[in-house]
């Protein structure tokens, strides 16, 4: 032996797929998005932290949180990026702008699309609000939010 190997590789896959529950807090968060087109948060009054997406616990002091408060749908662009490629590396026909939006009056926010075509019109600190799909089309998903638009 010691000759050149003919069978150099073996191909295969991991053939499982996933179904995630949203959890106790996530269930409330996405129900409110689906049914009322708004965002809810939970607050730890000891640490003075308002969590969006909401949680049943404060990560800092471990207090149990349970009071879900409507925090509206407006926020500020904390940071953003302009994507030219899709998740699997293909070139996008037009660039997509993704932003981390801090929701007003909270310590949390969401990463989502911005409905701005021209990257030069985006800046950190700009005011935005969520735009939702029509109620009949919502399924209780992050994509029930179509994007955030400047206000």
């Amino acid at each position, binding site marked *: 032996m010691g000759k050149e190997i003919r069978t150099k590789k073996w191909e295969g896959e991991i053939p499982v797929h996933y179904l995630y529950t*949203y959890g106790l807090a996530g269930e409330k968060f996405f*129900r409110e998005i689906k049914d009322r087109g708004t965002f809810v948060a939970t607050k730890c009054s000891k640490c003075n932290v308002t969590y969006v997406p909401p949680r049943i616990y404060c990560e800092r002091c471990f207090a149990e949180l349970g009071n879900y408060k409507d925090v509206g749908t407006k926020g500020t662009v904390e940071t953003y990026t302009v994507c030219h490629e899709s998740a699997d590396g293909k070139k996008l026909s037009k660039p997509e702008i993704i932003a981390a939006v801090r929701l007003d009056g909270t310590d949390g926010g969401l990463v989502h699309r911005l409905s701005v075509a021209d990257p030069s019109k985006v800046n950190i600190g700009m005011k935005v609000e969520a735009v939702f799909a029509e109620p009949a089309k919502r399924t209780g*998903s992050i994509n029930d939010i179509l994007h955030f638009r400047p206000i």
Partner: protein
Amino acid sequence: MLDNAKIKGKGLKSSDIKDGSVLTQSCNPKLQYAWDTGQAVGQYLDGLKDGKLVGKKCNGCNRIMIPPRMFCELCFKETGDWVELKDTGTVNTFSICYVNWDASRLPPGAKPHLPAVVEIDGASEGMGILHVLGEVDPKEIKIGMKVKAVWKPANERTGAITDIKYFKPYGG
């Protein structure tokens, strides 16, 4: 201490998910791989394509190993010569299986799968490989039984463990 009243956990029925009383999100990742076979397994697969089982010898502990390895995990040094083994062996253990990898059941009346660990003749004692048995009534399978590989015809072999279709009992 484990106070029943304090133990949490909201169990769901599968109907809760199906009827949408609980929201869910699905994800179908495409996890595809191309693994390098490496030197040892590469030669092993080439051997299978040629209708042979090959092992490798460790000059430290004198074990003849299948599948072959470039290093001995006991002596922690490089292994030595390639050794051509027989394509016969002994059944170390077996099972009669009625389920698939995803827990789904075989259709009623379908022939069960017969996985087995077969100790290959020519390799050191206890050197088994996972494979399947065939051409045998499940009730007749015995631990210790002698079996022989049934190969695919040469033009159908690709360099895979499935170049051996199964092991079947033989007089030997």
